[in-house]
């Protein structure tokens, strides 16, 4: 079981330490960790499980903050990592973001949350809805109140009813004047287009997000018109397994508020909405680049927020890039971003320019990989469709809403 959790800032400062068991972990482990991280560079920071001389360390990195957990005995490493991810999720949910200052400013809440989330190294309450009832998130009102009165308590003095019920993710006594339930299909398209311009892999990673505000303990069933296209699925604990096994119907009692009902994957898709055509030629120490982006298969809705990102190869000294549409930005770490937003009707956006190679290098041998980002509102590219959403007991005044959107996920074009 976990013995200690540290939160480190991106400069290696220990912002918080929370000892979990009687086997204390000295802070010096963080110094060891940070020295290693400096001497070994990025590859160390990307190692999720590290065997230090005294402890096993698990780390995740979120928004520059390293969550470090220590143990000395055998335990499932995924459990530790998953837990740290949950902590990070909960914190960024509570603090509306995650950075060094937010954590320092709200360190008491972070302590209280950690104390509630893990007991003796074993997770205790991790359900966000329950946590919210036990420890109130900081908000403008409470902040103002504390300025005015100098007094604020964010610790609830009663135990949320859900901890005792058989649906531990939901409190029982919820009342709304207007009952609403919204279902969002949020999809991300992952694709790999190889050097020859062939589509190697194209799949959708999707989530069904539900935002429910319904009185009482509602029983919901959600069904799809074409569930057979789903390749893999994962469910929120509220989903009952049996109806899905037999009829592919989602039957559940929802938590109150926003939550992720399920995530799914649709594999082996054949069409991509946008093409990217890179051309690179290099000779005698210079390299010419030409990049074209256009619509390949029109999804029927407007595609916006199109961006192309790529890392210039290390052998490039300088680059002079221009585009006929959108903005090109090159950061000091040679990361180049081309923001196109929408594709204009009259012309095909293209980016071109020359790049100077390092002296001694005649031709380019390492080629950039282009990452495409985009957003399409109102359509789920996987083709998944919701058939119907039913409530067992329909409350008066119920509003049901459905939405869909697709974003570029791990969408890569190699050159």
């Amino acid at each position, binding site marked *: *079981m976990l013995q200690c959790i540290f939160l480190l800032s991106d*400069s290696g400062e220990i912002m918080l*330490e929370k000892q979990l*068991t*009687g086997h*204390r972990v000295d802070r010096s482990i963080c110094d060891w960790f940070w020295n290693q991280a*400096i001497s070994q560079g990025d590859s160390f920071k*990307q190692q999720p*499980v590290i065997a230090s001389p005294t402890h*096993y360390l698990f*780390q*995740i990195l979120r928004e*520059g903050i390293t969550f470090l957990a220590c143990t000395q005995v*055998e335990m*499932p490493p995924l*459990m530790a990592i*998953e837990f740290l*991810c949950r902590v990070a999720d909960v914190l960024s949910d509570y603090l509306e973001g995650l*950075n*060094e200052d937010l954590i320092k*400013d*709200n*360190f*008491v809440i972070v*302590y209280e949350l950690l*104390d509630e989330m893990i007991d*003796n190294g*074993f997770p*205790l309450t991790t359900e966000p809805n329950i946590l919210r009832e*036990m420890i109130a998130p900081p908000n403008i009102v409470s*902040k103002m109140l504390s*300025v005015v009165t*100098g007094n604020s308590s964010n610790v*609830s*003095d009663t*135990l949320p009813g859900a*901890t*005792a019920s058989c649906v*531990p993710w939901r409190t029982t006594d919820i009342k709304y004047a207007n009952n609403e339930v919204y279902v969002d299909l949020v999809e991300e398209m992952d694709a*790999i287009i190889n*050097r020859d311009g062939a589509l*190697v892999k194209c799949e959708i990673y999707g989530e069904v997000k539900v935002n429910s505000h319904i009185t009482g303990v509602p029983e919901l069933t959600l069904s799809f018109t074409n569930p057979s296209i789903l390749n*893999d*699925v*994962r*469910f929120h*604990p509220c989903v009952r*397994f049996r109806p899905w096994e037999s009829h592919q119907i989602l039957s559940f009692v929802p938590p109150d508020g926003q939550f992720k009902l399920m995530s799914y*994957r649709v594999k082996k898709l054949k069409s991509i909405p946008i093409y990217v055509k890179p051309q690179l030629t290099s000779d005698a120490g210079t390299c010419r680049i030409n990049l074209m982006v256009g619509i390949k298969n029109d999804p029927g809705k407007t595609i916006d927020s199109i961006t192309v990102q790529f*890392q210039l190869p290390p052998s490039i000294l300088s680059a002079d890039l221009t585009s006929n549409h959108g903005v090109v930005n090159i950061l000091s770490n040679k990361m180049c971003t081309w923001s196109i937003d929408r594709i204009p009707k009259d012309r095909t956006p293209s980016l071109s320019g020359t790049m100077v190679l390092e002296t*001694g*290098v*005649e*031709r380019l*041998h*390492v080629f950039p*990989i282009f990452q495409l980002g985009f957003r399409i509102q109102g359509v789920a590219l996987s083709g998944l469709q919701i058939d119907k959403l039913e409530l067992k007991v329909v409350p008066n005044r119920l509003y049901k809403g459905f939405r869909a959107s697709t974003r570029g996920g*791990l969408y*890569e074009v*190699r050159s």
Partner: protein
Amino acid sequence: MFPQFGATAETLSKASTIMFRIGTDAHLYDDPEDVNIAPLLDSKFDSEKCEALKRLLALIAQGFDVSNFFPQVVKNVASQSLEVKKLVYLYLLHYAEKRPNEALLSINSFQKDLGDTNPLVRAWALRTMAGIRLHVIAPLVLVAVGKCARDPSVYVRKCAANALPKLHDLQQEEHSSTIEEIVGMLLSDHSPGVVGAAAAAFNSICPNNYSLIGRNYRRLCEVLPDVEEWGQIVLIGILLRYAIARHGLVKKSIMFSLHGKESPQSEKDSSDVEFSLEKDNGTMDWKYNSELASLVSRCYIEGPDEYLSRSSYGNRMFSEFHDYKFISAKSNDNLMILLHCTSPLLWSNNSAVVLAAAGVHWIMAPREDVKRIVKPLLFLLRSSSSSKYVVLCNIQVFAKAMPSLFAPHFEDFFIISSDSYQIKALKLEILCSITTESSISSIFKEFQDYVRDPDRRFAADTVAAIGLCAQRLPKMANTFLEGLLALTRQELLTSEFGSIEGEAGVLVQVLTSIKSIIKQDPPDHEKVVIQVVHSLDEIKVPAARAIVIWMMGEYSNLGEMLPRMVTTVLKYLAWSFPSEALETKLQILNTSVKVLLGAKEEDLWTSKKVVSYVLELAEVDLNYDVRDRARFLKKIVSSKLGSQEVKDDMIYPPQKEDLPHVLAECILRAQTQQLSLEPINYRIYLPGSLSQIVLHAAPGYEPLPKPCSVLHDEHSPETNKLGEGTDGSGSLSGSSDEETVSDYSSERSVTDSDGDDGSDETGSASENGNDVDPLIQVSDIGDTHINQNGVPQSASTDLGEMMSKRALESWLDEQPDMSNPSASGQSQVHRSSARISIKDIGSRVKPKSYELLDPANGNGLKVDYSFSSEISSISPLLVGVEVSFENRSTENISEVTLVDEESNKASDSAECSLTSHSDVPVLVPMEDITFLEPGQRTKRTLHVRFHHHLLPLKLALYCNGKKLSVKLRPDIGYFVKPLPMEVEAFTDKESHLRGMFEYVRSCTFTHHIEELNKDKEMGDMLTRDKILLVCETIAVQMLSNANVFLVSVDMPVAANLDDASGLCLRFSSEILSNSIPCLITITAEGKCIEPLNISIKVNCEETVFGLNLLNRIVNFLS
């Protein structure tokens, strides 16, 4: 600390967020000490207390030691405000271990909170109380946990389950059976939320106590989907272990493959399955993974360290595995139900749950069903990059043992640019092991893309992977070679200036891969060799040059073209020799000699010339390795060279041809063997374990139990008493040991690991622990054997001294007059006249004797000890112990002595501050007993300084020159000495020790009934007053078990003779070590002839001591 990171970002964001920081705790974190914290803590406003506590927390977060505020913080524990409480708890948990004495001040408040109506308050109190981890309060915590485990609130019960491992951590053996009992109770809780936490507790307390699981196995399986996610992870592991230990392995599962080799029938079975799964895989492939699969299953059961060390002797005999029972999953409901209940968990949102469930299927499911874990596992790859890495590590093992599983899903292992190097390398390795002929073309295309990856280390790995794939799929070798050659050309172009780091590595790897492919079938690839040798001039990297030169020497006789060009190349090498790097020089030497040995007639002369030239150059090289090599080779090939100094040897030309030549042939030209696939020596641990990721057995890692090692059927009576249940486990593991011993005699048995140290004590403890309050197990272990010969006399004299006359006067024989109105009308404290004789009560005071050494263990030497009330003259810290030695054997025993085993044990106990008087010896040495005849009995008085009034002291007993270690268990009743005082002084003192220094417990007193019955039998009912008898019995019990002074006896005034209500006895004493007075008051209620309810009150400033003393008194009175 490291200003180069994000310094500017920090200042920027500070400026921008200053607005949002209003109203948060920012100022507290930034300058926690800008105000004086101490007065705030004492403030009467909760808000100020909160602020002070927050400042302290900020200091803790920043790593400062603020434990000096402990006393002030502890005071606030009784606050009504939940926020203050929570903050105090956070502080307490951080520092309690450092300040055990002050932490104890909070106990009363916890005790109070445990009775609160708000479940949240109860849960917090329990969590904190267990979390402060002090040995001394362990008994109290245990009671609290026991109570909370029956709490109506699920949340509180869950916290109770979580508190159990905290108690277990304190390693107090005497509680272990009670703890296990509570674990068992919580495991059968009706709320799934509790079961999850109980499973976690089970895992860390008694992972091998299969009887607890056996009782609930089916129910636990069924409840599994409803248990909360974290509990699921642990529970899955527990159920898997139990199922294997109880029911064995499943036929046709991956674990079965090792067995499949033995019997032809099953061989056919399993290979059928295999082939149906991967139709296009070669037979070689099948063999490969079956060997691996057997390695996998073996590692799971034995642990790789053990298995690999055994197999390194070349002994891979499977004989001892013959006895594993394999059962078909379809026929066994118990296994089916586990598989059935874990399969929906493959859809869980928690990746750890998915992996754990996949592990169960991997080990237990029949081969054809294993494939259902594939998609869920692959889906996990879309989660965070940290979990991706862990999942890939596990998939790697699965894919190696059963490539057919993942072969159709190769696309999922394609690399994306955001993957870290570790992930890329893992994906590459998996791709390598799952390639099939149908997928190789796509995979090879991918590889060609990877070669241009900006990460050159990864590019080099890719090239190596191509080489590996070619070995697995020889048909593709030509395609691969073409690709590699193209790559060489390209690499040569780019690395022309040698400027780019990492390119060299890629080039070397390309050539290594080419070499390994050629090695498989040299005649086929003659042209490739020629091509490579042609480019020798352009290859600048020494390591790469060395490889090419090696290839030239190795294949110099191959085909038509090569032998012809060899001499030319050799000349070129000889020319460039002086400017080469070390490894190239060595390789040139080797190669030139190889060429010479294989040279045909027409080239012989040239070769000789070149070789002698090179050798001469090498002999004067700066590097000694090169010089040595040259000399060695020169000697070996001297005959062939026909060298300059040969004159004498010319007479025996045939002989000269012989030895060195053969030697040279052997060394340099022996046909390189086609290396079979290297022996598989992967370290494989259970799927999902930490050990599998770090590739060594982490502490606490346990391989799977031996199949069917638990033979006992535990399903039987559910009503089985828990105490018996734990006993059962002891005998169970014992019997299973016997079962397994014949089969696996050389191996450590898994099942006995929980047995030995726990079972004997827990056994005896649970005997009397069944119906008695668990607290009494503190020191009541061992025989309550009463020594009849010597002890009573000495005790009675001691008592005579100890009980002052004054005290005994109050004990009077005047009870017949008690109903006398004049007497009862007065203050009940003072009574006079009649008296009981000292002997009367003294003779009945018998200090309890405990066994130190059983004659069975000590070759007939029996050693008992009892605590004496004599106060040591050497130091007040020493407790007098009377030890009696008796020789029960028929032989003489000589040189008996008792010494302290290790004197520094105290330093790691948390309470060392209590007894850190290191100048006092642990044991005042006793005189040796030089000789003990059969049947002889001797006594010695020891003065012992216990480290703690609850912890046993380890002593070493020497007899006949042998050392036996024994444990001396302290009796808290003798850590005090009588403190004579008047009853007024008593009441006065008592009034000063109210509140948190006062502890009360009650119990039922029954000892007097025995006495009454005895009297009845004797028929002299009338002569003795019942109340007096009760008084006497209580006093005797007290005085026989504790070294206290009887201050007074208050008699009830009631008219009813039978009613003992109001009877009150007062005893006083002071603690030996610090002379703090300790007052004991016993009041009785009820009828004389019935069991009495007595309540015992202890007033003592030393909280812990008082509590423990109270528990001890309750223990011996009830």
